[in-house]
């Protein structure tokens, strides 16, 4: 999800909130008549005439399908990967453009973290933070992990990324979640001596 899409979501949410609020206040005013005066009953004669006309179903279907497709596009837009896919490196010049495929790098460092730290299910993505690019690695910590190992592995990963991108404002971040709950086995292999 991009920042632009989030901005659209926020504006649309605010408009929907205002519309719901206005409709609710209008209905309350209909009942209590504080601001305006309204008919006692809802009459839909004019609307009914339009709804019964021959052109209305076609116009409504055309508009409805367009809005439906817009809704589908909007919904699917939230599933897109948010971060940049590539980054132009400072080595680019008149002789050619040098780009790094950041998503492959993120996937690679996720695998690297899994092999060097007690972390499972590591996945790499990218994020933009201002002019910086974050290589974001998310994973689940193993319960038996030593916290110092996690810190050391993250620092080692950061150092490797710093060596790979010395002047390109690309850094890495590790975000760890709780381990996924495993279904308990019927027979436990734990033996406790006390």
């Amino acid at each position: 999800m991009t920042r632009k899409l989030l901005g659209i979501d926020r504006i649309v949410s605010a408009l929907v909130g205002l519309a719901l609020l206005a409709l609710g206040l209008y209905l309350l005013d209909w009942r209590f008549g504080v601001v305006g005066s309204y008919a006692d009953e809802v009459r839909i004669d004019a609307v009914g005439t339009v709804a019964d006309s021959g052109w209305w179903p076609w116009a409504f279907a055309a508009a409805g399908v367009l809005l439906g497709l817009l809704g589908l596009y909007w919904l699917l837009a939230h599933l897109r990967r948010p971060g940049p896919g590539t980054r132009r490196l400072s080595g680019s010049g008149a002789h050619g453009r040098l780009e790094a495929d950041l998503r492959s790098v993120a996937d690679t460092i996720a695998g690297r973290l899994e092999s060097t730290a007690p972390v499972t299910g590591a996945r790499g993505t990218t994020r933009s933070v201002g002019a910086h690019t974050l290589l974001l690695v998310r994973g689940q910590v193993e319960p038996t992990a030593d916290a110092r190992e996690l810190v050391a592995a993250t620092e080692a990963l950061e150092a490797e990324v710093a060596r790979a991108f010395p002047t390109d404002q690309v850094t890495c971040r590790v975000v760890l979640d709780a381990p996924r709950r495993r279904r308990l086995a019927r027979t436990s292999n734990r033996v406790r001596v006390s």
Partner: protein
Amino acid sequence: MSDPTVAARPASPPRTPPRARPAAVTTSAVLALVLIALGVVSVHDLAASQGWSSGSSWTRSVLDSVEGLTASVLVVAVAVVLVLLGLVVLLTAFRPGRRTHLPTQGDADLWVSAGALAALAGASADRAPGVISAEATRIRPRSITVDVVTHQDPGTVEAAARAAVDTSPGDLAKTRIDIRIKEVPR
């Protein structure tokens, strides 16, 4: 003088915390589904009006049910719900998503969830001598409580569990970890 063999670390980006999706995303997802549903209704009504399918127009049915509606108590109840819902949607539209992870101490850009910290603390306490079982039960970003079951001397076991938790996760994040002993008969 700096060591030329050590790569210069690029300036760190601002440490903006990882966040969950804001509430505005949920609102817009619901609205997108409403738009898709509107498309389905419009095609259904077209098919019904042209005799391509059996059944009647849904929009016509809605209009018929609204005809003659008065400002009853039910309308007031619906209005109150709409006002409250509108306020909630409006107030949450610009709220950032909640923070999902805690920063760790030190320079590493490492973030852990309270659940991850609790898992580490629970497993460490579980391995301490004299502990029958240990599990993190109250998990909050500011404090975690680990329930330790033992049938030995509570003071000794608590000290052992505390020492284990101080080793890992230790001071990984600024979250207080409390040990609660539950003594069971031997």
